[in-house]
């Protein structure tokens, strides 16, 4: 384990508690927060405005067509759900692996997960032609005596996403309870005390409670870990089960999961780096944390790169004319720029992460995190659109060109995401207080001979 401590400086139980709780309880806050809130609020307005127009006119306002019947909506969905993977991965896997450094980042990472997954969940509804009937994907007793079609990956997807959302939410909330109690006891006003108190469920930190709590939390971790893997695997089946060249590939599940974590950790950095700066959390989210996150990005990035290589290899190795055609189309077709963009953003540039100086330079990391997310979005575009634009019969080949509404809604959703996150920072502790105390405690223990 690295020598640098996970908490820098001379912090005690009390000071840790006060420091983190004050971000929530103390007003006024850093001005940049207000600015950010306003900007993202505006973007959110655009998002919902465009949504309204979409519902009145129909999906024809986008660039989708036949053969490219799936466009941004699905790409965005996969992208967001991918981002939504880091949080639960951090809190589940790293918990099981006893990675103590997770403690200072899992809280906001999980929040990020929830928001991202939530926004991801919106896209399929926007995507369908008759959203008001989207509930037909839910099995419920009805007078038509008719059921969802269980063989469809979209139904699997519906179950996977909703399970993932619920479990993540529960996981997150359970983790919050003791901290809510902290806020309850330090609340500056009666109402705040009651609100936090209500959600704290009357937590009082009794030894037996802690015992059961830890067991339950560990179980949740154990359940969430395979869930994380399953969710993006199933998302990948939306494509892999299809027969379109460029979709129909057995490598998709691992390759999608890796990609998800890749973009997920990128988003963690995108959020953590400004946050630790503006709210003075450098001592809790130390460079060592960033370094670890960067290493995971490097690892997952390499898996993704492997995926790219294997796709090309299998295409030619299988000697399937359609697969080869698809690959050549990615290389040299009308969307070649996307493919090469993906390679640059996801494979070439991130190799910087091999170098310590890059991993320890917040600016480089921040820039990289953005590049990688761009790259991962483009990858989804490449998979969804490029594959569809040229499939089996040359006569039905066609192009997809995004409309202004495609772009508006994508940007709007990003705005909405950050809006939610900014709100979160100010109403709930962005770092797990009690786990930080625990960390401190273990540190003290460690000092004893």
């Amino acid at each position, binding site marked *: 384990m690295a020598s640098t401590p996970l908490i820098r400086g001379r912090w005690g139980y009390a000071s840790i508690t006060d420091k983190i709780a004050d971000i929530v309880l103390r007003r006024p806050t850093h001005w940049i927060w207000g600015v950010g809130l306003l900007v993202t609020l505006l973007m959110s307005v655009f998002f919902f405005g465009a949504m309204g127009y979409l519902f009145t006119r129909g999906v024809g306002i986008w660039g989708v067509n036949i053969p490219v019947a799936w466009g941004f909506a699905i790409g965005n969905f996969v992208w967001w759900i991918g981002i939504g993977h880091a949080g639960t991965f951090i809190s589940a896997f790293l918990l099981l692996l006893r990675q103590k450094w997770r403690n200072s980042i899992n809280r906001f990472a999980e929040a990020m997960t929830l928001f991202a997954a939530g926004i991801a969940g919106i896209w399929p509804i926007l995507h369908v032609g008759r959203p008001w009937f989207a509930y037909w994907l839910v099995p419920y*007793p*009805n*007078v*038509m*005596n*008719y059921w969802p079609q269980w063989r469809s990956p979209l139904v699997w997807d519906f179950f996977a996403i909703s399970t993932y959302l619920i479990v993540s939410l529960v996981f997150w909330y359970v983790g919050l309870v003791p901290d809510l109690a902290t806020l*309850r*006891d330090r609340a500056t006003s009666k109402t705040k*005390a*009651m609100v936090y*108190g*209500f959600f704290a469920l009357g937590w009082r930190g009794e030894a037996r409670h802690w015992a059961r709590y830890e067991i339950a939390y560990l179980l949740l971790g154990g359940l969430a870990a395979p869930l994380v893997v399953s969710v993006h695997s199933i998302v990948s089946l939306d494509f892999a089960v299809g027969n379109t060249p460029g979709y129909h590939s057995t490598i998709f599940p691992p390759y999608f999961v890796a990609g998800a974590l890749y973009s997920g950790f990128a988003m963690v950095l995108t959020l953590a780096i400004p946050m630790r700066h503006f709210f003075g959390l450098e001592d809790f989210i130390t460079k060592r944390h960033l370094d670890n996150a960067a290493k995971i990005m490097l690892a997952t990035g390499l898996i993704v790169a492997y995926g790219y290589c294997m796709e090309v290899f299998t295409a030619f190795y299988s000697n399937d004319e359609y697969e080869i055609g698809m690959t050549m189309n990615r290389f040299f077709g009308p969307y070649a720029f996307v493919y090469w963009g993906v390679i640059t953003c996801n494979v070439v540039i991130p190799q910087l992460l091999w170098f310590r100086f890059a991993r320890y330079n917040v600016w480089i990391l921040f820039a990289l995190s953005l590049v990688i997310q761009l790259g991962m979005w483009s990858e989804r575009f490449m998979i969804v659109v490029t594959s569809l634009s040229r499939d089996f019969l040359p006569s039905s080949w066609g192009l997809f060109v995004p409309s202004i509404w495609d772009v508006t809604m994508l940007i709007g959703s990003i705005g909405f995401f950050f809006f939610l996150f900014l709100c979160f920072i100010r109403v709930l502790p962005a770092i797990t207080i009690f786990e930080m105390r625990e960390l401190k405690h273990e540190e003290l223990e460690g000092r004893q001979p």
Partner: protein
Amino acid sequence: MAQVFSARAVLLLKLAALGAVVVMGTGLIATYKYFWGPDTVAEAPEQPIPFSHKHHVGDDGIDCRYCHDSVEKSSFAGIPSTHTCMSCHSQLFTDQKMLEPVRASMATGQPLHWTRVHTLPDFVYFDHSIHIAKGVGCIECHGQVDRMPLVRRVASLQMQWCLECHRDPEPHRRKSSLVFVMRPTSEIRAEGGLPDTKIQSTRRLTDCSTCHR
């Protein structure tokens, strides 16, 4: 600090929670009942003329086909033209106030506007002729019309209701010659009025394409 929540506060919260559960529960049930719940007994709608099937069918014993003349050859059973009504009522009850609209229609050539009792969604293609041909008695769907002063709907006409029969048609079928007899199929069958037609497999009958195009 003292307790965050006073005993009263806790009590209130508990009551609130209980209330929420009740409200949501009832709300859910209500919506379900409204949209999907079975409603077999629909009110008989207002009609321009209080035409009584009880009188015409039950008492006078007029055959269904006299008025619904296309029921055996078309998807649509047919609503009698004014002319058909007048074929009797030019002689009978000629001074009846009640029949004024009919006479008016005949005179002006403007048709009567009845209110539809049995309506299906537009994407359902129901065909009377085939049900008649396969020995499904009128009564199966329309009930004892001969006892209805004003016709009302007795079946929900929902897909699940259609499926009940399409999944197991036998008990609902009778001898083709007895299709128009206004008596329960069970009786008719008991008296030997068993179906004399063969029908397609239930798999075929439950195909989507059987009713939807």
